[in-house]
């Protein structure tokens, strides 16, 4: 079972890939290869996000309305690990 840090790193890698390909697609909107790459990584990123959220709590407000409001429950991303 991957730990929270590994799940986060996987999510960060896939998200970063999308950040980069997004900028490319902005100026190359008809590049079919780049488009299909984006869609492939997007699907993987969606899975990684759901897996991470199950372990570590909400990434956005979309998943914050749990039994209670969970936005302020976990460590913030800038906190130094003990």
């Amino acid at each position: 079972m991957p730990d929270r840090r590994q799940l986060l790193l996987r999510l960060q890698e896939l998200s970063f890939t999308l950040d980069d390909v997004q900028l490319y697609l902005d100026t190359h909107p008809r590049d079919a290869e780049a488009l299909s790459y984006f869609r492939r990584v997007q699907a993987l990123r969606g899975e990684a996000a759901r897996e991470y959220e199950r372990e570590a709590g909400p990434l956005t407000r979309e998943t914050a309305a749990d039994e209670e409001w969970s936005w302020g429950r976990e460590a913030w991303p800038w906190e130094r690990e003990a």
Partner: protein
Amino acid sequence: MWIYERKLQYPVRIARPSARLAQLIISQFGGPDGELAASQRYLSQRYAMPDRAVAGLLTDIGTEEMAHMEMVSAILHQLTADLSLEEIAGSPFAAYFVDHTTGIWPTAAAGVPFQATEFQSKGDALTDLAEDMAAEPATAQTRQNDMKKAPGGCRGPIGSQWVDLRRHLLVRSGYCR
């Protein structure tokens, strides 16, 4: 409109606090070539961009610069956490500490507060793009200057794995042919 995603773009894990290094890295936040200026540069300029595709690019780059600003701020926050007063008093960070303690406040390393005059928004797409092209290598150079001062070297976001600026520049110049 922006929606906050509760993660950094790249992990920040500072092993050892350093007031000295924080005093240098703060320029990446509020200095003339820092991420605050970068984000406001792109996000302000996009309104004058007549080409919708490039206006989208400016929006996306400006958004990513805000993510960079958050990483730099996290680095500063972690570098200054748990410092003793003795460590601070004997470092160049002492002058900042007197006004802000360890709060994150945008300023250049030499103490010049962040100023909007550090970027331009001219209402002319080509003038603005020319400024963007100059700003990107300036940021990279500041980062390299910081790396030379880091004790034991730096890995990760401050190193080569950060955004591949050259590739972004090629994308942009490719559009402007």
